[in-house]
């Protein structure tokens, strides 16, 4: 799962520019690099769900172009690395690039709406603070209870905060998408 695929791509490429090559990305998002004298570039791709056969075709074709598969999931995101030469992009025309942003928009919207629904379920039956009678307490008792409860509130707000992040990445992808469509 990722919030801002392009920021992540930029960060990875900054590391590669310093003379590293990515060798592994774990499921938890831990990157392993090794030093190299060659220049590498990383591109992130997002595809709709790929069946086993389609994934094989997809991977095979990119590999023919010299891309090395670093990590990813058939459910969506894919990390591709390649030695820096004149062909460093995975999209060469406007149409395919705008389709890419369209897929990103669908991804962000899907996750965002799901998380909004989850946070609706969380807050619907209980409101923001769980403790009964918190708002009728007075003085130091109120503040103690309030401070005690606040971390739980933050915890329960995580789905909502994530939904906001997905909303932002949806908007970013939408901006790029509409710029490509206009021209």
């Amino acid at each position, binding site marked *: 799962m990722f919030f801002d695929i392009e920021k992540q791509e930029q960060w990875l490429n900054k590391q590669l520019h310093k003379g590293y090559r990515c060798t592994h990305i774990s499921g938890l998002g831990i990157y392993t690099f090794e030093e190299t004298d060659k220049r590498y570039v990383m591109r992130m*791709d997002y595809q709709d769900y790929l069946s086993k056969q389609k994934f*094989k*075709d*997809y991977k*095979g*074709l*990119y590999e*023919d*172009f010299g*891309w090395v598969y670093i990590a990813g999931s058939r459910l969506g995101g894919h990390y591709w690395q390649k030695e820096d030469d004149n*062909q460093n*992009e*995975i*999209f*060469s*025309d406007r*149409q*395919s690039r705008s*389709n*890419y942003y369209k897929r990103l928009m669908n991804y962000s919207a899907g996750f965002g709406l799901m998380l909004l629904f989850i946070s609706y379920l969380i807050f619907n039956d209980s409101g923001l603070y769980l403790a009964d009678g918190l708002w009728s307490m007075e003085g130091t008792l109120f503040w103690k209870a309030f401070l005690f409860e606040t971390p739980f509130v933050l915890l329960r707000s995580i789905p909502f905060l994530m939904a906001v992040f997905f909303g932002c990445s949806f908007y970013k992808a939408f901006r790029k998408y509409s710029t490509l469509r206009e021209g």
Partner: protein
Amino acid sequence: MKHKLLPLSETMHYILLALREPLHGYAVMQKIEKISNGSVILAAGTLYGAIENLHKHGWIEPVGESGRRKVYMITSEGNAILKMEQNRLLHILSLYERSESNEKI
């Protein structure tokens, strides 16, 4: 309404033209680089998406395998699309040829 892939983009046009003979994906890119005199060099994701799209609309189809690679070729529907596009472009070219002075409005 017009089909959403029409008029054909440069990428789609070149792929359909290249696939009048059976080729696998990477060979399509190489052939297009050659027949476009080096002006159209498709990237991996663009080619993958275009092949998927053309296949989805039935304009190309897999006709076999070469090693692990799928080999594609244009279908009769695809050829009909090319014929339509050829007529459209020929008309536009004829407008280029016509001199301004002959215009009667």
